């Protein structure tokens, strides 16, 4: 079994919320070392060499993202994205609650690496407990001298602000998050300019996921080669995979990228007795399903993209043969329709209409012509919006429509079809 404990090390064994415990286990050593021995350029190079890619969903190489920052004197910001709301994802929830100092150390390292003097963490509004735990971690770290003015006598000032959202999935999109952080409606911005050029308050900004920043700590500790030697050629290192649905032991499991999906299923205890697999959603609500015959796919960015789906945030939802895919499709479409910010017409109207049509199917009142309409409308939403939310509607719907057409056909209202 390839389960490892890198970020998850010590979770469930020690009270990592307490800074003394965290320090006993080697916490904040890397931060001290970075300030004492490494230049900002060294941190960036290390991050680049490790091949670390964004763990929030898009999988963009982190070092490259940092390198887009312009070389000017404007203040720069690091924003840690903890607006975790992708259906099926629950890794950041665990990280900030169980090991907040690791996340914080990663944030401080990231901020130092990009030359930022003010780092923010945007925590989803529902994580009230997580917000309190993380705020306490920040207080402890400030008292210990890891946050504040003139860190370790180097003259480097670094401030951290913990910011809480108020219930909006769209704020996980980085420009929507920045708008929300600026006290505005969480509506995505038109890109370019990308946040690296004009982000928070119009200044150069890097937005990184919680897990991405947390990985900086072990990478600094064990070197970029250690991280880069794991995984596949282009998907390097480890990933926390959130496995849920119809499995016997749902939970967060940290594995090397490239682990076959079949093994992930085994790690999570397999299916319940007497059930057979129907579909797996490998990368959160926005990803197309994979099926029984694709179980040997390696779980990495490229292999899943080649199979027409994606790794996304690493949320694996397993569905067995008891699943009603009409209801599942309705559920996810309703989610996107509800969470659409409403700026772009295809997403706002399209999502709403798909929800309406699928609601008919759920009640067994679909029309024959609706099936084609579902395909058509979902395809027409895709690619026409400011952000990827609208594009997220089609993959799951299209994949289950194709795989389980009989479930939809069975809900067509036969009486309206002339004999």
């Amino acid at each position, binding site marked *: 079994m390839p389960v490892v404990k890198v970020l998850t090390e010590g979770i469930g064994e020690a009270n990592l919320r307490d800074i003394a415990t965290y320090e006993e286990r080697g916490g904040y050593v890397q931060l001290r070392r970075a300030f004492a021995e490494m230049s900002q350029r060294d941190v960036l190079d290390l991050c680049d060499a490790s091949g670390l890619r964004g763990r929030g969903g898009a999988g963009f190489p982190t070092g490259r993202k940092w390198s887009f920052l312009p070389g000017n004197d404007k203040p720069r910001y690091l924003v840690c994205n903890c607006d975790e709301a992708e259906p099926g994802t629950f890794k950041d*929830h665990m990280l900030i609650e169980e090991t907040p100092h690791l996340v914080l150390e990663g944030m401080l390292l990231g901020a130092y690496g990009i030359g930022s003097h003010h780092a923010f963490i945007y925590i989803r509004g529902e994580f009230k407990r997580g917000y309190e735990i993380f705020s306490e971690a920040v207080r402890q770290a400030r008292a210990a001298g890891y946050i504040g003015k003139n860190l370790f006598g180097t003259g480097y000032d670094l401030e951290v602000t913990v910011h809480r959202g108020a219930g909006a999935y769209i704020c996980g999109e980085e420009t929507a998050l920045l708008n929300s952080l600026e006290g505005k409606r969480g509506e995505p911005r038109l890109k370019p300019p990308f946040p690296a050029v004009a982000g928070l308050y119009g200044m150069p900004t890097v937005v990184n996921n919680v897990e991405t920043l947390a990985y900086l700590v072990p990478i600094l500790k064990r070197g970029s080669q250690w991280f880069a030697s794991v995984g596949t050629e282009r998907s390097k290192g480890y990933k926390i995979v959130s496995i849920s*649905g119809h499995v016997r032991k749902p939970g967060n499991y940290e594995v090397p990228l490239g682990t076959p999906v079949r093994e992930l299923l085994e790690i999570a205890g397999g299916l319940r007795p007497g059930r057979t697999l129907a579909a797996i959603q490998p990368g959160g*609500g926005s990803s197309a399903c994979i099926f029984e015959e694709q179980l040997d796919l390696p779980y990495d960015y490229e292999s899943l993209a080649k199979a027409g789906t994606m790794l996304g945030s690493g949320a694996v939802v397993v569905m067995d043969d008891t699943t009603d895919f009409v209801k599942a499709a309705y559920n996810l479409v309703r989610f996107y329709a509800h969470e659409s910010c409403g700026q772009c017409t295809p997403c706002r109207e399209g999502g709403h209409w798909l929800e309406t049509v699928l609601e008919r199917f759920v009640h067994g009142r679909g029309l024959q012509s609706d099936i084609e309409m579902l395909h058509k409308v979902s395809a027409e939403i895709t690619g026409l919006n400011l952000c990827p939310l609208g594009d997220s509607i089609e993959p799951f719907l299209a994949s289950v429509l194709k795989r389980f057409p009989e479930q939809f056909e069975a809900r067509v209202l036969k009486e309206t079809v002339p004999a």
Partner: protein
Amino acid sequence: MSEGFRALLEELRPRCVEIVAQYEDSRSALLPLTHLFQERQGFVSRDAMRAVAEMLALSPAVVESTVSFYTLFFRRPVGKYVLQVCRGLACTINGAEEIMAHLRERLGIGHLETTADGLFSYEEVECLAACDRASCMQVNLEFVYHLTPQGIDDMLAAMRGGTYATAPMAQTQVPARTWTVVQDAQVSHGTKSAGAQGQSHPNNASGLGDRSGVVMLDRIVANEGLFRGRTLERLANAEPTLPKIVDEEAEAAR
């Protein structure tokens, strides 16, 4: 601005100043300040929005527009216990529908409603990021995992008896049946026609909100004569007949 609110504002002002000082731009404090007032008042009152606007040098309209974007801000009073059940996919395939039906039955209210005694508000919310402990819910934003009908009954009894672990929310005003603004239009005017936009109700597909046409289709099937010659024909013949559009200028030129 009421007398009570003025006192609250004076009490919270030092904390507000601290919050605003955390940001380079004061407007960033909009969400944290709103959270602060909601925690004390149980909802975001008009007074609170006006106070936030004043502190941040914004128009109250800007504050209300922003606040209205976020589902965790209640712009009308809610119950002392806000029960938010996850309706995400992982919870749904692990029995959330039965849990929701049980809760609705026990509370006697539906989605986005508050009980008459003002104790409970009920909402079905999107994925709460606790799929490994499905099905789950939040009570005043504290998680409750692995829900069962028996667990729900015990929880409600503890809340009614005042022994529940999570503290009730502040309640400074008596809540109405719902806190959503869309439905207020109907409550105050009562003029919207059946099936009008915004009247849909997920728990009552046969009520006013026949958004997807389920009830209409049922009526057609049950009572053919009523609609013969019009709707039924239209439904049966997917190809609509549209008038031909003639480009008169082009015709004339030819």
